[in-house]
């Protein structure tokens, strides 16, 4: 396995919005322009963003808007002219994403990143890239990177209903699509699709999606002796290991201190064996925050 670096160069900067449009039911794609020397970023990493204006030293900081940033996996990174262009996918679930939805082209968003661990790329394996719902985001970036490097992979993309599919563009070819309600693709879940994956595939499984799906994929991979990496999420305070807020129940540590890993620093991409799935489920894993 090739492991790549992380957290090499995290910065905060104002990004200009190039595009912000709906691509599926409650799913939006935001394209942002950043300086050319931003990053380097790799598949699996995230950015932590806020649509709020910068705090000014002589203005009382009573922050009428949102206080914290919100994390999003990178769905794509490229270069246009002398700028780095990144893409994120978001659903409107609360106050911040509602604000984001209203941002027009040329408006600004404050971006901290790129942060977190990366999906390892194994040139020798036919990997399975599994995305559920808006969890497809980091897999789009990983798949594009695998495609660019001519490495074999199969993309598996599950949603509840066909209207939720983000367009896959050139990545659609050979992808296994599932909708739970049978409104398109295969009827069922990503696990049903995995059963139909090419026989030579699977040595490495990379997944992102809701807790129940990730747990099922991890179990499926484990039963077949495949290595499984998952991209996880909890409520983030800072995204850069200052607060310790994004704890996820862990297994296999040495002692008391190792009972939790931090999604921002130890993840978001972690080996599935490191997670105590049952403990996490009982705690109501990664429930989208209710309210504002």
């Amino acid at each position, binding site marked *: 396995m090739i492991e790549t670096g992380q*957290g090499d160069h*995290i*910065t*905060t900067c104002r990004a200009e919005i190039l595009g912000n449009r709906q691509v599926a039911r409650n799913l939006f794609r935001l394209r942002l322009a950043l300086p050319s020397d931003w990053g380097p970023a790799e598949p699996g990493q995230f950015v932590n963003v*806020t649509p*709020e204006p910068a*705090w*000014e*030293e*002589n*203005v*009382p*900081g*009573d*922050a*009428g808007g*949102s*206080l*914290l*940033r919100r994390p999003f996996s990178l769905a794509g990174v490229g270069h246009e002219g002398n700028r780095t262009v990144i893409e994120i996918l978001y659903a409107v679930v609360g106050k911040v994403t509602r604000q984001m939805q209203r941002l027009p082209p040329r408006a600004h968003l404050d971006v*901290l990143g790129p942060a977190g661990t990366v999906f390892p790329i194994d040139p020798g394996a036919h990997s399975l890239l599994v995305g559920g719902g808006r969890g497809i985001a980091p897999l789009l970036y990983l798949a594009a990177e695998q495609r660019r490097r001519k490495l074999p992979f199969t993309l598996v993309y599950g949603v509840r209903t066909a209207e939720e599919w983000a367009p896959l563009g050139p990545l659609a070819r050979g992808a296994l699509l599932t909708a739970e309600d049978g409104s398109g693709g295969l009827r069922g879940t990503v696990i049903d699709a995995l059963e139909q994956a090419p026989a030579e595939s699977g040595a490495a499984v990379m997944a992102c999606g809701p807790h129940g799906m990730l747990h099922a994929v991890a179990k499926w991979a484990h039963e077949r002796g495949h290595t499984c990496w998952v991209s996880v999420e*909890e*409520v*983030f*305070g*800072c995204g*850069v*290991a*200052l*607060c*310790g*807020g*994004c*704890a*996820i*129940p862990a297994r296999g540590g040495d*002692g*008391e*201190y*190792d*009972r*939790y890993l931090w999604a921002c620093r130890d993840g978001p991409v972690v080996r599935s064996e490191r997670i105590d799935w049952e*403990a*996490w489920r009982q*705690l*109501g*894993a990664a*429930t989208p*925050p*209710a*309210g*504002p």
Partner: protein
Amino acid sequence: MSGHTAREVDLSVDLGSLELSNPVMSASGTFGYGDEDPELTQVRALGALVTKTVTLNPRAGNPPPRLCETPAGLLNSIGLQNVGIQTFAREILPRLQDLGPPVIVSVGGSTADDYARCAEILDRVECAALELNISCPNVASGLEFSRSPAEAAKVVRGVRRRTKRPIFAKLSPNVTDIVAVGRACVEEGADGLVAVNTFLGMAVDVEREQPVLPRVVGGLSGPAIRPLALCRVWELARCLPCPVIGVGGIVTARDALEFLLAGARAVQIGTANFREPARGAKVVAGLRTLLDEKGVNRLRDFVGRLRLPPTEVS
């Protein structure tokens, strides 16, 4: 505008025997141990670095979710997850010395003896001062020490016997009379007081009809608590002779000036670091500019110079 450049404003302050080049510190628990990405946090610019709270034994911290954003605030229930004092003193503290600012180690415990034993270990290694976290609302015995003057006194007394280093006691605002607790700490030898830790708070998930935080209540921080914190700082500063370090919802240099006017000798930046990891550095720069604009040459001359109306009721 005064005629000189902003760079000339003297921001130095003293907290008893501890001299700081400027009054801005990180608040415990909002800055990791202090060495998380020094370039991003610009830790070098701070007057002092306060570490995350360290306890005698390693602690796993509380189950997730540990955070919930509220209007202009943040509820947390981290639960003092830390590596324990031995590992901290051996592996982490030495590398904090290279960051630049004096290092103030935040110490927590379940018993008065825990604090004393941590102080003993820290007395054998390099650090500038100890901050006693006697006010964490997110651990079993967290608030007991700062809810009673006698209990708070016991902790400070035990630590005072084991170290000659400056001791700052971090007080809880979740008390009826914060001055009584502060006075008890000072009488036992605390060199200063840090006010305030988080306010007890709670959030309910209406869909699930259950508390958002598994431990039901957590600690509220952020701009939402700034007026509440400021009020406690003012009470302490006017009633007690020791240095008071103000903390609670400070985001900008202007916020910091509110606390300094009210009598705080220094300030800590906490939750604001989560959005802007270099917030402290920006507050330092902002203080230079704002004080220069006010024609203040020395911060020491400015601290506590709040002009009270003649009708102020004591």
